[in-house]
């Protein structure tokens, strides 16, 4: 491996993002231990990463309207689905069919937000680092690093560390709670529901109430209204935090009928 290979294959950027294969990562590390140019590029990339990670929400919001939700390759599928939906509406209404020329591509068609998906959204529950009984353990080190990603909005990147921490220390409820929440925030509803289920199974822990609440959010994302309602009713019956939020969601679900 030399500087040219590294530049050509964007290895430093991939290294910083944590997507380089282990063997390449080791080779790159050994290389920059002796190379001034690659080491300085690494420092630049790390500083840039730190800034854009902290500003991730603002950057995504600023460019959100210009960034496609689906890769270009899937657009024909999305366009077909949208055309099918329009055809369905047309067939079920007596109004005359709109001329084909008026068809608008999906990326500019204003769509009504799906109420269930809107209800499934939530702000990440705050995390405050506290001294833990296992401070210094491998699981705690993994957790700490993962929670840095979490607090900076990189939920998908937080998941592997949280999963590894949960596997190394199966007794720590916080690891599994934040694994569940991060999975939901990364649009991995099934994984999130599964992790929160293990928190609920533990019974009365400081995370019980929130686990019911956020699992309900997972069910909403999965459009499983009955399960979401059941979890929200649990939150109300526990009568701790999040009762107003749970009640508001129950009211919204009732209004959807």
């Amino acid at each position, binding site marked *: 491996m030399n500087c040219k290979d590294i530049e050509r294959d*964007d290895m430093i*950027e*991939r*290294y*910083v*993002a*944590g*997507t380089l294969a282990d063997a390449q990562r080791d080779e790159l*590390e*050994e290389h*920059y*231990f*002796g*190379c*001034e*140019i690659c*080491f*300085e*590029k*690494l*420092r*630049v*990339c*790390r*500083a*840039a*990463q*730190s*800034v*854009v*990670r902290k*500003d*991730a929400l603002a*950057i*995504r919001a*600023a*460019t959100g309207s*210009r*960034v*496609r939700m689906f*890769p*270009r*390759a899937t657009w024909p599928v999305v366009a077909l689905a949208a055309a099918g939906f329009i055809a369905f509406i047309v067939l079920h209404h007596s109004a005359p069919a709109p001329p084909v020329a008026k068809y608008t591509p999906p990326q500019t068609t204003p769509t009504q937000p799906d109420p269930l998906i809107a209800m499934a959204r939530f702000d990440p529950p705050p995390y405050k680092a506290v001294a833990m009984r*296992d*401070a*210094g*353990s*491998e699981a705690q*080190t993994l957790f*700490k*690093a*993962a929670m*840095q*990603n979490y607090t900076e909005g*990189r939920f*998908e*990147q937080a998941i592997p560390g949280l999963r590894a921490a949960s596997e190394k220390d199966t007794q720590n409820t916080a690891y599994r709670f934040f694994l569940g929440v991060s999975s939901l925030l990364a649009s991995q509803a099934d994984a999130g529901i599964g992790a929160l289920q293990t928190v609920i199974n533990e019974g009365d822990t400081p995370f019980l109430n929130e686990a019911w609440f956020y699992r309900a959010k997972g069910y909403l994302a999965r459009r499983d209204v009955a399960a979401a309602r059941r979890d929200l009713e649990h939150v109300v019956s526990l009568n701790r935090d999040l009762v107003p939020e749970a009640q508001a969601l129950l009211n919204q679900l009732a209004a959807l009928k």
Partner: protein
Amino acid sequence: MSKLPPEGDLLSGLATRIREGDKSAESDLFLFFQPRVYEFVVVRTGDSELAQDLGQEVVIAVIRALREGRLRQQESLKSYVYGVARNLLQDQLRTKARQKLDQLPPDFDLPQAASQYEERERETVARQAIGELEATDRSILLMVLVDGLKAGEIANRIGLTADGVRQRKSRALKKLSALFKPAVTKSARRTT
């Protein structure tokens, strides 16, 4: 860019000088490798406190080995330091309680280590440069450095070609690099 000579010249010379008892060579070795160990540990663990401690511990272990002539002649110094860094990091992750080195051993007189403070300074410079970029370029940096997407994937999302994405990314990083240069040169001057 730093005026440091290539590894072969600088580092092999350092190993010899340290073996011969040259204290300034120990400082040079520390200034060269401690920041590398720091970055290595931060990327691997995300723990800058651990990175600062290990950066120091690794270089001290290497200097001890060099003083005692334990580095084989044909062995590359950078590979040796990297090996020590990997081993100490693995030991650290396996150890239950953290063995924190509060102060330097009495037989060491080393310069100030690269630290979280310097990292924050670099971040300030980066923030200024990134603030001046176009929104699309900021978004590309986010997708490359945080989301770990490839140029082709980003191109699909933002409607550019993969080459266009690469060019924009390189231009943005070069801009940052140019702002970093004065700081790098200053740091290199300290080592000579």
